[in-house]
């Protein structure tokens, strides 16, 4: 699609921008309620232990302490466990602790200082148990078990012929299987078969606003002011855990200070509710960033790919074995495993595919949603191996990719939707910007060598069979309130959704306000996930705005004695032929009093499709085209990214500044993970789980040249938009690995590509 005629071409100032640059923006972090107490959490120092006893007597006796909560309180709840599909995580540890940082007890006191002092007075007696903090340890014969009994819940529902199992083997949370054709037979008939193994690292979201929740219980009503990305998902969980109907739970959302998946799904929120119930007062729990580091991570994993190819460079079949480290509890592992396994084939054509993927339980921080959601792991392994195969066959990696890429409209897998981006065009844009054609091979200057690498990461976007609802209220003055529950987390939902409403109503953007989110009055949304806001919530908002517009035109037609078809809406006047009729006086005259609000309703449900492998065809595809030029120091192993080009496809940008920001922000997160960022474990314990030791990218880590681009190939969302938020995360690590091999001829298959790892690979090379 040619974006030149787009009404959205002109960049806009973000509607929440003035508040954000003046300090006026309010986050859940800033919420304070009268009589509010402050909570702190006691965490396990052991990776794995049975809790023999907990004595809270001294803590409860400390002046200023209002409530102490332990597993005894959790056991009394109607359903004390949570997790996506498989529910194994207790509100607070009940009988065992399963990782260093597991929540053992919590205190609510008049201030944080007293709460901290009370924690020190709680006496916990543990019987330490042997622990497993890596996948191979957890799967070893006779390994200690994290769980003695099966967890509640069900495996993820998938289409016919796919495998989805809950707890199939000891320490395995879930398993996914996908086959198409006879991969063994096709591999046996292939000219070459290559098997390679990749290791993916564990990283933390490091959102700057820590997890923060305030709970208030008044009579039958449970209220939460929460930084959670998914207010309605949280409402369901709180209702189930406390045995209430959802209409007695009320969730308030504010600006969220970064999430990237770290604030999705239920976590410590029920513990805060439990404290508020026991204390009889509102309770605020604001974790420290140290604690957020112990709350959720991206999945580490081992991916083994066996790929067949013909002599002339045509891909034939791929068999994959994927083990993700799910950590101690389920969280969103069951879904992540499905998505990783499904995406492992990348944007290529295959005769046959066989994939098995599982999540392994270990005594580490639970893993769950993180920007890319399995797509990052799959893209790293797949795009690394594609490049390795090209080089082994002596084919240029660019040509090898082009030869095997799925064409526009070709289904990702049989039964799924067609690829909706021109993948070759994006790659061409990358090599043009990178100067790939002009590169000088092995341009070694002393001990430093330069190389270039390419990659095409891909994932489905928008969720699977997703849905959303929205309201658009138009006031007598033509001012608008958009009411939807896509949470403003920095992605620009406020501006994008407002712009969709403004465009539909033909009103100025600054007449629109994105309303406060309150589950009592805001229409339901399935969560701020999977780059779905612009498309899924966006369609609901567009339909709500169109409904409101139609109501306005019907009203005006009645007043003017004509049909709505004769009228057009333009800047809060109705035009009929050459005459313009201002609406505000028309509404005042008819309704009097406080006037009237036109309330438009909109919804969307992405259709379920029993023939689609994941039970619904992908709503859109999110490619990530990357080119990296690196300089590798042969003597130290240090890798410097000198030029990074990252591109994505917005379908059609509704908010150009936000699209660029999403791509560049995601890509720099991926750059950090590629080069140095990792939550490391030694002897069963995390060794760098503090903000100082856990290093995230700073401005000085920017590549010398850092470029992004956004293509517009159309999509299913409003005005041809599609989601873009996760894209930049997908292809960066593999592009850098590919560039390292281009520079120094060695392959690093484990991220991060630290100097130690790169040097070891150089020294091991023949």
């Amino acid at each position, binding site marked *: 699609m040619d974006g030149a005629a787009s009404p959205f071409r002109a960049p806009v100032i973000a509607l929440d921008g003035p508040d954000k640059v003046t300090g006026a923006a309010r986050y859940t972090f800033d919420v304070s309620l009268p009589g509010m107490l402050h909570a702190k959490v006691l965490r396990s120092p052991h990776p794995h232990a049975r809790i023999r006893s907990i004595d809270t007597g001294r803590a409860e006796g400390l002046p200023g302490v209002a409530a102490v909560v332990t597993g005894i309180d959790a056991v009394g709840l109607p359903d004390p466990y949570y997790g996506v599909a498989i529910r194994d995580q207790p509100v607070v540890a009940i009988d065992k602790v399963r990782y260093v940082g597991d929540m053992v007890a919590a205190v609510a006191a008049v201030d944080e200082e007293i709460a901290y002092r009370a924690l020190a007075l709680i006496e916990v007696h543990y019987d330490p148990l042997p622990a497993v903090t890596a996948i191979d340890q957890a799967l070893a014969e006779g390994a200690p078990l994290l769980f003695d009994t099966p967890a509640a819940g069900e495996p993820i529902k998938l289409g016919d012929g796919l495998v989805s199992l809950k707890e199939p083997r000891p320490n395995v949370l879930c398993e996914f299987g996908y086959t198409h054709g006879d991969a063994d037979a096709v591999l046996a008939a292939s000219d070459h078969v290559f098997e390679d193994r990749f290791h993916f690292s564990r990283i933390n979201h490091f959102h700057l606003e820590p997890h923060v929740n305030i709970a208030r219980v008044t009579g039958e009503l449970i209220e939460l002011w929460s930084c959670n990305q998914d207010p309605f998902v949280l409402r369901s969980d709180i209702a189930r855990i406390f045995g209430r109907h959802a209409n007695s739970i009320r969730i308030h959302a504010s600006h969220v200070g970064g999430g990237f998946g770290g604030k999705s799904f239920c976590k410590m929120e029920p513990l805060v509710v439990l404290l508020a119930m026991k204390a009889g007062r509102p309770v605020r729990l604001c974790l420290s960033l140290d604690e957020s580091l112990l709350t959720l991570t991206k999945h580490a994993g081992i991916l083994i790919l066996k790929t067949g190819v013909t002599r002339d460079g045509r891909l034939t079949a791929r068999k994959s074995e994927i083990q993700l480290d799910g950590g101690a509890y389920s969280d969103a592992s069951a879904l992540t495993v499905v998505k990783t396994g499904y995406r492992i084939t990348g944007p290529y054509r295959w005769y046959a595919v066989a994939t098995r993927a599982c999540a392994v339980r270990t005594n580490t921080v639970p893993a769950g949603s993180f920007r890319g959601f399995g797509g990052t792991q799959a893209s790293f392994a797949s795009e690394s191996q594609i490049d390795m195969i090209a080089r082994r066959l002596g084919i240029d990696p660019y040509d090898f990719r082009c030869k095997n890429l799925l064409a526009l409209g070709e289904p990702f897998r049989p039964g799924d939707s067609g690829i909706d981006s021109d993948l070759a065009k994006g790659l061409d844009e990358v090599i043009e910007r990178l100067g790939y054609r002009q590169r000088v091979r092995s341009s070694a200057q002393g001990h430093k060598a330069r190389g270039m690498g390419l990659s095409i990461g891909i994932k489905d976007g928008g969720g699977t069979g997703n849905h959303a609802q929205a309201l658009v209220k138009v006031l007598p003055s033509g001012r608008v309130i958009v009411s939807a529950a896509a949470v403003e987390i*920095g*992605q620009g939902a406020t501006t994008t959704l407002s712009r969709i409403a403004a465009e539909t109503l033909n009103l100025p953007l600054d007449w629109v306000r994105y309303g406060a989110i309150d589950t009592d009055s805001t229409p339901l949304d399935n969560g701020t996930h999977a780059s779905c806001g612009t498309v899924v919530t966006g369609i609901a908002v567009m339909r709500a705005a169109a409904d409101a517009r139609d109501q306005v035109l019907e009203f005006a037609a009645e007043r003017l004695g004509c049909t709505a078809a004769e009228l057009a809406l333009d800047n809060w006047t109705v035009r009929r032929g050459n005459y313009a009729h201002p609406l505000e006086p028309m509404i005042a005259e008819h309704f009097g009093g406080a006037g009237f609000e036109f309330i438009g309703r909109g919804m969307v449900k992405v259709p379920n499709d029993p023939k689609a492998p994941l039970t619904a065809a992908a709503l859109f595809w999110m490619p990530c085209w990357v080119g990296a030029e690196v300089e590798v120091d042969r003597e130290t192993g240090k890798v410097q990214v000198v030029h990074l080009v990252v591109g994505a496809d917005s379908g059609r940008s509704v908010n150009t500044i936000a699209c660029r920001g999403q791509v560049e922000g995601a890509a720099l997160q991926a750059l950090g993970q590629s080069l140095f960022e990792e939550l490391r474990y030694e002897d069963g314990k995390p060794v760098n789980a503090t903000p100082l030791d856990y290093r995230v990218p700073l401005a000085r880590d920017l590549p010398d040249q850092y470029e992004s681009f956004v293509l517009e190939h159309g999509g299913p969302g409003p005005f041809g938009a599609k989601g873009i938020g996760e894209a930049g995360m997908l292809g960066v690590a593999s592009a850098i690995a590919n560039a390292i091999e281009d520079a120094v001829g060695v392959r690093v298959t484990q991220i991060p590509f630290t100097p130690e790892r790169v040097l070891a690979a150089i020294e091991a090379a023949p």
Partner: protein
Amino acid sequence: MTEAIEIAVTINGRAHRLNVAPRRVLADVLREDLQLLGCKIGCDQAVCGACTVLVDEMPVTACTTFAFEVDRKTVITIEGLAEGGGLDPVQRAFLEHGAFQCGFCTPGMILSVKALLARHPEPDEALIRQWLSANICRCTGYQMIVEAVRAAARSGPG
């Protein structure tokens, strides 16, 4: 409990006399006593820079500065930057260049940039990157912030 200390401090151009307990940090006094909630606390240990404020024009992390340390000093928070209702040139540059996403790091980042431009009105790329490395932004990838700093430098002191 040790007795509170009385301090005299000018905050955003206004003289205050405050009684502060010796263990209280500036960030808490700003947020709790004065409702200057633009001062955000991220890491609470002087790593992320979200709580950066200017004390006698020096950027400091308010989360690790004792309140009594600002006695007889001048403090500028993000709320004090816009004079006479108009935005400061740095704020305007951030706004126009989309140099923020979630916005949690933005007040501290803007005050750091303010201090940079006060010392180096025409910073080069390397200096901008080095200076911005005192503040973590997990959302933007920094490039659009760098562009905003260049634009603010071009626009002069405003």
